[in-house]
């Protein structure tokens, strides 16, 4: 049921690390974007089941992109993956409606746990 994943990060290295940490058995289509503005466009067009979103990015940062994505679809599952681990930042993204926040650099365990939670949430939303 997880078919499409969007990854938004200005760092190609961060995207590569994230993809390596994803469960190897996933059979999904990927879309990548290098800033919040591109990410938002991709989000509208691609309609991902799950989005991984960085915060510190040029053009449009992740805070704004998150808000805009949730305006488009208020049930969107967006996982923030960021090195900005200030408590106020974590509180803010969670109150904006992020599904989860993962600290950089991510590990296989944290990413796989996050994906499992997202899948469980998708099932729950489908039932209700």
């Amino acid at each position, binding site marked *: 049921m997880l078919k499409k994943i969007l990854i938004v990060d200005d760092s190609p*290295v961060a995207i590569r*690390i994230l993809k390596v940490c994803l469960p190897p058995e996933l059979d999904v289509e990927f879309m990548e974007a290098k800033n919040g503005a591109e990410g938002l466009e991709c989000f509208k067009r691609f309609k991902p089941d799950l989005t991984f979103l960085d915060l510190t990015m*040029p053009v449009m940062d992740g805070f704004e992109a998150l808000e805009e994505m949730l305006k488009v679809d208020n049930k969107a599952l967006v996982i923030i993956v960021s090195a900005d*681990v*200030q408590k*106020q*930042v974590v509180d803010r993204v969670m109150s904006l409606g992020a599904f989860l926040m993962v600290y*950089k650099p991510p590990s296989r365990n944290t990413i796989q746990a996050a994906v499992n939670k997202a899948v469980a949430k998708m099932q729950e939303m489908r039932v209700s």
Partner: protein
Amino acid sequence: MTILKDANVLFSEEEKSILQEVMNISFGNAVAELAEIIDVLIRLSVPSVTLVSGKDFQRDLANKIEITPPYNSIEQSFSGKLNGYVFMIFPEGSEKKLTALLGDYQEHLDPVEETRLEKGALIEIGNILTGACVGKLVDVLDENVSFTPPRLEMASSPSWQTPLNLIGQESVVISVKTEFKFMAHDINGYFFLITNEESLHWFKKALHTFMEQF
């Protein structure tokens, strides 16, 4: 300014981009540590990595600072497998806001005492950010370094003379820049990390080792 012809051979785009991400992680952690101590929200920028020649790095640094001099420059060197300098630049006037943020202000201070407190605030905040950032950087890369105590320069144009002993005119310098802004306090500043040519070789190896774990 000298264009480094074989800059790409010395340090590839790939290596720059790994260093950029590692720096992003390190500075993000440092800022979170500072925000535990003082009640601030700090907005970060995307770090940028450039290679410059030893004789150009001072001019390069000055060109990258978009605040009007004079400014406060908190400088600290570190050594180990990685050798370099960190410069933290705050605009003039920020020393008063930072002192207030640390809760160090008292009423009716004489100017000498006030200046002492302000210098102390700059040095303390510089020291926290530098220690946490460079500490995390080398930690991510599985190494450690030792620091000299921070020094504060308040000048219209910092000389940045000291690093030349470490760097040498002929050598290649890796220069990493991050901008930050203390939200709600209208304080913006810069964090520069520069390392010498010997460190470049260690950096290359350590960055690839970092990527191999994934």
